[in-house]
């Protein structure tokens, strides 16, 4: 990988997904504990920043009144986000987990409303203007937003790497479904954070 052409994209690292007490914690905690997700996300961020890899965030829309009103159909995950007011604006759950906060020089893309970090956002424009061709994806959730973002990314011509142990999902079965059947079709490689750290980034 060439640092100047690579971006780490952290998807939906909200307290509601990743922190005890978050609205998705009861569902997500099994994968977070099994994979040691939060530690691995921190390690991936630290390593990429040290190596000069550009860090981007692809955040899901925060819940606020009317945010879903322009949708004719709410798909299952968007419907549940509306019902449970997931990532509510100006709430603890709607903030990024403390240890995963953006730092100076990072890019926080505009919000995605459904699941792909590219659809309706400024992420692709920013990556293009930054000369990025390779993406390293991590965050939440394995078979929804992360996989959707990967599927969009390959259509847009990016080479996609997914960090298999820096992910969370609503169950271990969901995570395994993404690893076995989803990422096999939409990622060029699926590696651990250890492998990322051991790999050469020029």
């Amino acid at each position: 990988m060439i640092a100047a052409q690579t971006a780490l994209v952290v998807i939906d690292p909200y307290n509601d997904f990743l922190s005890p007490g978050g609205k998705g914690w009861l569902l997500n905690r099994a994968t977070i504990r099994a994979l040691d997700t939060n530690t691995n996300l921190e390690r991936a961020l630290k390593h990429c920043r040290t190596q000069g890899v550009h860090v981007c965030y692809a955040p899901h829309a925060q819940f606020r009144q009317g945010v879903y009103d322009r949708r004719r159909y709410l798909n299952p995950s968007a419907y549940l986000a509306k019902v449970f007011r997931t990532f509510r604006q100006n709430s603890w759950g709607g903030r990024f987990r403390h240890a995963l906060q953006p730092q100076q020089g990072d890019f926080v893309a505009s919000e995605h409303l459904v699941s792909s970090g590219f659809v309706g956002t400024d992420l692709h424009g920013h990556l293009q203007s930054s000369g990025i061709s390779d993406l390293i994806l991590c965050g939440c959730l394995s078979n929804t937003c992360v996989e959707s973002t990967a599927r969009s990314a390959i259509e847009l011509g990016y080479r996609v790497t997914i960090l298999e142990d820096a992910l969370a999902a609503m169950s271990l079965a969901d995570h395994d479904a993404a690893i076995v059947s989803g990422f096999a079709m939409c990622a060029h490689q699926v590696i651990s954070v250890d492998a990322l750290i051991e790999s050469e980034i020029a």
Partner: protein
Amino acid sequence: MIARAVNRFGQWLVTREMRGYDVETSGATAVLVLSGQRAFLDEDGPWADLCQHPVSLPALRQFLDRCRNRDYHIVHVPLDLEDVASTSAIGETHFFRMIEDHGLLAPSSNSAKPASDLIDVRDIVIPARKGLNAFSGTGLHAHLKTITASRIIIVGGLVNADVDSTARMAVELDYDVTIVADLIASLTDQDRKNTLEITLPRIVGRVASRSTFD
């Protein structure tokens, strides 16, 4: 235990909400036929050997006839690899490498052409799909807008490849999406279960079977 109960409660809420979409839908319905080409439908071809669950051509034909009788629009979106370089980022992904390795869509071969007995004069054929997602660079969304389609039924294609990518993008574009599970191919039982029973129910409105449309 608690997580399973929470998950089930969520699924119950979703099912209840989606039932309302059946009643409220006012736009037209379009059936997207993904990869309806000989290469993917011939019973004796290499694709049938690769897939534990290939799509049955007679069953697909019968389903499309039934949909035409209901005045659904039939939209064929074949895969066209003619200009997809094997060295491009998407050309290097597993699905495209598999197709290339097995010579499935060799340009100008008969197997690359849409199965003519699936196509009716009233149908729409969208050419030049170069990726997994049928909306990407094809003008499909604009076609669907002109026929005022708001509901999409997906048949054909490979469950965790073009079916999944197209379904996700259709949802992003605010269509009500139904996948007909028994008219979708899969390489393995596990891919089928993972995609149709675990992942796609979180993404799309409905995963149904042919019998739902009887």
